[in-house]
């Protein structure tokens, strides 16, 4: 019901709104009143307005930057652009924390490289982010922005505490998912704290409290991860300059193939060949001209130093002999084929038949979003998910997150609330139907509500 939804929002955000935004303290009487606070809704509304404003500004920036020939002016434009892009992330995070995150039905399908670069665009120290090896896959429309924002929170955190460059890479796993790695070389996090963080991230999403309101990064990561069944895990490398590795596991159903981004150029290349997955076969060493070529003027190649990892078993298993790049695509699991199977399980009581008369599977008019067996691998209790020390799980060994049942008693989305709301309305309508049917002319349709 809407009232319950509002109450939940109020619980989540009211303390945050008061402590962070320095709002005038509400009168005690106001706190005791059972009525839900309006703050989450206010925050959501303002976040939406801000997002809409920056969406209007972006094409203007694009236009200004496109033909600008003067280096100094362009630099200024970049700074303004950077500010607008960071504003967008702030507004987006406010929207997420307000708990009323809109179901994303549209969006931009985005290659993994672009997801990482969208995240880079929205953080302060983007110049200190290097892109390592990245598999040539994309993220589906409804999740691309959220994945970018999740990565943005992680690299924002990493660059804030690491003086050296942060390396982001994305590797294909055996189960068809992707593991993104965000590696920094900062002072690292205390191992016990890392354990705690991992336990929290594996558990249920907590409400927004005063403490969370001060450290918004992980609550954002937690919410976004839960929303899409993404798993996030941190590992601290011991020793000076060891730094921290954040691992983001994208389930196969969030991934898709990408068409070539620059078809105009593709036809012109003399020997263009499939380079899938890019970077996994060892490319020739150039003087700083590898993947990081367009990233940093001075920096050399910055492939993740996986051999230096204290837990080498965490390294992705997508590394393959470099000699057989052309044979790889067929050998790979096809991620977009994965999540199609258990459609019949969602047959409604109204429509129990799962096959048509001709024996074909009956189609259910439901959105892909809900029918795909979203695994919610972050289960509701820490005990349910083994985020522990079993590295095989993270390495993507035999685990298939998509097969696991997904009990989500607590994590009800806005859409689910809306569904139960409409179901309730329908039930009420049915209950009041008989008297209406007896006197069809006396009560105009629609009135019983």
């Amino acid at each position, binding site marked *: 019901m809407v009232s319950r939804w509002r109450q939940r929002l109020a619980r989540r955000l009211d303390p945050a709104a008061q402590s962070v935004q320095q709002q005038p303290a509400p009168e005690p009487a106001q706190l005791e009143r059972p009525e839900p606070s309006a703050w989450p809704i206010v925050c959501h509304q303002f976040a939406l307005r801000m997002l809409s404003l920056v969406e209007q500004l972006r094409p203007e920036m694009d236009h200004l930057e496109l*033909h600008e020939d003067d280096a100094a002016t362009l630099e200024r434009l970049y700074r303004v652009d950077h500010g607008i892009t960071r504003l967008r992330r702030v507004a987006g995070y406010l929207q997420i924390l307000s708990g009323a995150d809109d179901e994303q039905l549209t969006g931009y399908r985005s290659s993994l490289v672009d997801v990482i*670069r969208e995240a880079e665009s929205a953080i302060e120290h983007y110049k200190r982010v290097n892109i390592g090896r990245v598999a040539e896959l994309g993220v589906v429309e409804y999740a691309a922005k959220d994945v970018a924002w999740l990565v943005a929170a992680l690299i924002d955190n990493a660059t804030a505490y690491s003086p050296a460059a942060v390396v982001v890479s994305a590797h294909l796993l055996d189960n068809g998912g992707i593991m993104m790695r965000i590696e920094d070389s900062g002072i690292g996090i205390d191992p016990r704290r890392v354990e705690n963080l991992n336990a929290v991230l594996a558990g249920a999403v907590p409400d927004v409290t005063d403490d969370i309101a001060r450290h918004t990064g992980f609550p954002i990561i937690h919410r976004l991860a839960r929303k899409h069944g993404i798993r996030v895990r941190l590992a601290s490398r011991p020793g000076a300059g060891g730094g921290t590795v954040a691992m983001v596991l994208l389930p196969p159903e969030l991934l898709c193939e990408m068409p070539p981004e620059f078809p105009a150029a593709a036809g012109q290349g003399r020997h263009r*060949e499939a380079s899938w997955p890019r970077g996994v076969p060892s490319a020739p060493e150039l003087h700083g001209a590898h993947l990081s*070529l367009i990233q940093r003027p001075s920096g050399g190649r910055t492939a993740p130093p996986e051999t230096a990892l204290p837990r080498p078993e965490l390294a992705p298993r997508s590394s393959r002999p470099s000699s057989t790049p052309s044979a790889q695509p067929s050998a790979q699991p096809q991620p977009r084929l994965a999540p199609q199977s258990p459609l019949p399980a969602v047959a409604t009581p109204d429509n129990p038949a799962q096959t048509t008369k001709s024996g074909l599977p009956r189609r259910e008019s439901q959105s892909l979003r809900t029918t795909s067996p979203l695994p919610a691998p972050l289960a509701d209790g820490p005990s349910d998910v083994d985020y522990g020390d079993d590295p095989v799980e993270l390495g993507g060994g035999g685990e298939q997150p998509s097969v696991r049942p997904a009990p989500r008693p607590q994590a009800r989305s806005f859409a689910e609330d809306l569904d139960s709301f409409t179901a309730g309305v329908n039930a009420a309508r049915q209950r009041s139907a008989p008297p209406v049917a007896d006197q069809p002319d006396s009560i105009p349709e629609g009135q019983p509500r």
Partner: protein
Amino acid sequence: MMPNPWVRPYVLTAGRTRTKQRLLVETLVSVPRYDPQVAASLLPESRALYELAGRTMSIAELSAHSKIALGVTRVLIGDLAANHLVAVHATAHSDRDNIIPSLTLERIRNGLAAL
């Protein structure tokens, strides 16, 4: 397919707008020795420019064909040139003495006549 509009241009160049070499809109660029492995190792924009420059083109043409903003094209080509992946041809303005050679004048005349 529409590229992700929130990948901002400053990220593609790490905020840089200048290049070591002077690259004007009319500066011609070519690829002396195309290497598909190199192409595969480049990020999408650099790869597109590297492949386009297989036919000698000006900076302005490269930008227009790839739909990559001029300022980004310039910096990416500058990086490719710094790694000797593309060759930058001398132009009238990039030469130290600011004299336009007669050959260039002839090319301009021919170009105008062809319009």
